[in-house]
């Protein structure tokens, strides 16, 4: 019997050994995969177990965290949510994160290893770092001016500091309150459904994620290309261009909205926004130089991050001459985000140099110690400095006596360019009203701000729509806000 008791004991040992081996298998070897399973809520619980870091505008947080006492404990709250939605994005327990909430998630949620002074020790103790803060470059006054200016119209505003590329305002309307998506409950699901089904697309970030035909505002680029390429040597010399331009190789003729464009000088054509002159100029410059200049301004750049990605603005490089003519006046396949057009304006204001725009000034720990700053972003020459000087003159003329007089601000030098972009099948859509501009206070050493405004469907009658009357006043309000601050 003794022997069999021993065998039975050995059998029990075997059972316990199997348990130990199996436990080790799960806890050592499968642990990683199980921890990362999307159905495992532990990562979410840890993630929401502490308040999220804040996004700061003008030194004040525009976000916050609310302790719900639930499993996913802290929920995001937003102060002035709709105003800053295109910047902050949302942080939803259910639908993830977007924009800065997404791009800076490591800092905000505290997972960024930079936040932890002793990361090995933290791994051991399983402690989490408190979330850090993200300090933005936004100018709250400019942001509010843009938001108020757009009102309940569909549109967007982007404003940049030309010398640095700091983004001062980034507004998209109609907007929404990202706080509606913060939690996990049925109300959040309803909000999500409602926002996604809204035909006005309130969650679309029109300032950086939507491209529009830039229309006449693209003439800044065409003019820069023509001057740089030497196609135009003098602003006031007549260009040999007809009043009705037949697109090369076709029978289609191009008209002007204003009179007096025949053989107009570059200055006159720019101020009057003559389509024929710039269409022909584009063809004269040629696709190679047009492309080079457009890309120097930032078109066709798929890599731009501010730090979230920006929809690439496009200038089609494989075009025939007729298409090039249309492309050169901001139609055909030419498309630009409002941010891209602000960059065009900023390049003119900044002596031909364009800096990549950025939205995050620095990130800090929860105690305010800086952990990273956005250094000087890459500098790119968009055009000759002399070309920039001439374009500044042309843009000033537009505001002082052309289509952009609505943008005038006493005590400041303003340059601008209007645009009214056709779109839709056979141009049937209500045109987009554009205005790009820059402003330099009389006591400033350099231009303080470059702005691009687009208004999608201005409620005015179609014929009355123009960048000058609808978009320029919004740009002026933004520029005024920056100049005052």
């Amino acid at each position, binding site marked *: 019997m003794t022997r069999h008791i021993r065998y039975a004991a050995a059998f*029990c040992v075997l059972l316990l050994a199997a348990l130990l081996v199996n436990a080790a298998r*799960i806890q050592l070897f499968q*642990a*990683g995969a199980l921890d990362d399973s999307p159905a495992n809520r*532990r990562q979410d619980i840890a993630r929401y177990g502490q308040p999220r870091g804040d996004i700061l505008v003008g030194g004040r947080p525009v976000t916050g965290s609310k302790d719900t006492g639930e499993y996913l404990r802290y929920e995001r709250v937003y102060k002035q949510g709709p105003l800053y939605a295109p910047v902050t994005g949302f942080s939803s327990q259910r639908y993830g994160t977007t924009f800065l909430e997404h791009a800076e998630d490591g800092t905000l949620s505290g997972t960024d290893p930079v936040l932890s002074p002793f990361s090995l020790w933290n791994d051991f103790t399983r402690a989490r770092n408190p979330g850090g803060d993200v300090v933005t470059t936004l100018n709250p006054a400019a942001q509010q001016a843009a938001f108020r200016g757009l009102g309940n119209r569909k549109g967007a505003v982007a404003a940049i500091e030309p010398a640095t590329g700091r983004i001062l305002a980034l507004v998209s309307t109609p907007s929404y309150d990202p706080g509606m998506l913060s939690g996990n409950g049925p109300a959040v699901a309803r909000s999500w459904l409602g926002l996604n089904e809204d035909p006005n697309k309130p969650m679309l970030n029109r300032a950086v994620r939507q491209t529009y035909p830039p229309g006449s505002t693209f003439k800044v680029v065409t003019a820069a290309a023509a001057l740089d390429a030497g196609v135009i040597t003098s602003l006031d010399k007549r260009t040999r261009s007809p009043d009705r331009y037949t697109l090369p190789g076709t029978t289609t003729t191009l008209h002007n909205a204003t009179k007096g464009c025949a053989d107009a000088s570059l200055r006159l054509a720019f101020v009057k926004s003559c389509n024929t002159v710039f269409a022909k100029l584009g063809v004269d410059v040629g696709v190679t130089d047009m492309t080079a200049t457009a890309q120097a301004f930032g078109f066709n750049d798929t890599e731009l991050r501010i730090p979230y990605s920006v929809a690439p603005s496009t200038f089609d490089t494989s075009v025939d001459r007729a298409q090039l003519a249309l492309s050169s006046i901001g139609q055909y396949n030419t498309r630009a985000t409002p941010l891209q057009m602000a960059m065009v304006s900023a390049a003119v204001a900044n002596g031909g140099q364009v800096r990549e725009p950025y939205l995050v000034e620095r990130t800090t720990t929860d105690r305010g110690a800086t952990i990273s700053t956005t250094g000087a972003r890459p500098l790119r020459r968009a055009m000759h400095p002399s070309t920039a000087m001439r374009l500044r003159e042309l843009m000033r003329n537009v505001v002082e006596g052309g289509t952009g007089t609505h943008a005038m601000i006493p005590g400041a030098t303003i340059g601008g360019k209007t645009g009214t972009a056709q779109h839709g099948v056979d141009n049937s859509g209500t045109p987009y009203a554009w205005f790009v501009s820059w402003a330099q206070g009389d006591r400033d050493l350099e231009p303080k701000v470059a702005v691009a405004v687009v208004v999608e469907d201005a409620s005015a009658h179609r014929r009355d729509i123009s960048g000058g009357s609808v978009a320029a006043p919004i740009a002026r309000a933004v520029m005024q806000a920056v100049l005052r601050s």
Partner: protein
Amino acid sequence: MTKAGTGTTVAADTPAPAVRLPRRSGIELALIVVAVLLSVYGYCAVGLARTGAVPPGAVGYGAGLGVLALLAHLAVRLRAPYADPLLLPIGVLLNGLGLVLIYRLDLETPGDRAAPAQLVWSALGITLFAYVVAALRDHRVLQRYAYVCVAAALALLTLPILFPAVNGARIWIRFAGFSIQPGEFAKVLLAVFFAAYLAANRNALAYAGRRIWKLQLPTGRVLGPVVAIWLVSVGVLILERDLGTSLLFFGLFVVMLYVATGRTGWIAVGLLLATLGAVAVGRTEPHVAARIQDWLHPFASIEAGQGPNQLAQSLFAFAAGGVLGTGLGLGHSTLIGFATKSDFILATAGEELGLAGLSAIFLLYGLLVERGYRAGLALREPFGRLLAVGLASIVALQVFVIAGGVTGLIPLTGMAMPFLAQGGSSVVTNWAIVALLIRVSHSAREQYDGRVAP
């Protein structure tokens, strides 16, 4: 292993070489103090992790457990001084740890506090322990009550059929706000009966009867009654859908039959029957078929978009624990939901104490089982040996069935982790098991102290 190859069956029956065994009561006391302190420490750790303060009841809790443990120790010291000094401290430590884990889970479920009731049951269990140790002068007395035991066991097993099913299983009886799982008590009674019957008939079992291929069958007259009782027990349990316990009874019977007869063939027959039974039940019972599907594909419900099932949640909990665990009070095993404090208590241990803590717990069970077997080996008379083997096997099999279930090693069957899990009947039963093992080990070790048992 013994040098058994040399011996005949008769020679193998002689006990291991005799050594003079000291009483070691002081060691038992010291270990009990350690066990109580560890439990109080766990209790404080939960409070510190959750609220940043030592829980107000820590002193009372520690004192309560300490007094109970001392009472048990006194009973052992006075009435079973030669008993194995490890058995009681292991029981105290596991029971204390279980109370800590249940208290910790209570914090997550404010509407359902289980720890106070568990403490009352533990007190009852330890009192029963002290009573058994003190009142049962010699374990061989139990042999006389074999048929009382089996009658009581069958009555207890059939009783729940009269009561409504709870969560799909008819294994509870409820009265006056208490619920009792009679199957828990039945397993001890059945072990006593098996031990008595097999001890009385082991020669007949081993040598008589027909031979089928390599298996020497005992005569039906000898084997018949015990097989009948066993079949009734398992049958009743299947009717009650208590699969864990039926598996336990099955394993217990096979192990005891094997030890009693020394026929390896019984294990083969047992495995064959178990397989046949499992296939039959798995085919006919949708409840069981679902459990087997869960075991084979624990993440199927996730892929189907229905979220993780209990087993997947349990595996997540173990994985989250890793090697060192999240720390007491800092895990999220309540995600498992239903039965976190009972069937799935080990998942909380796995998550918050990690593989390290889990290994310690398994080793404690292993030690308890090993000490039981050791007592069996040291005894000379077959009833005591079979009783010790049976009781130790109950612990081993039960730990394997439930721990294997929640870690995905075998299909999940509802059972209580001995001492750890919430459940009054279970705690009381386990204390009874330890009490009997103490008695048996006292007899076993006493005979070497110059005073040979009568």
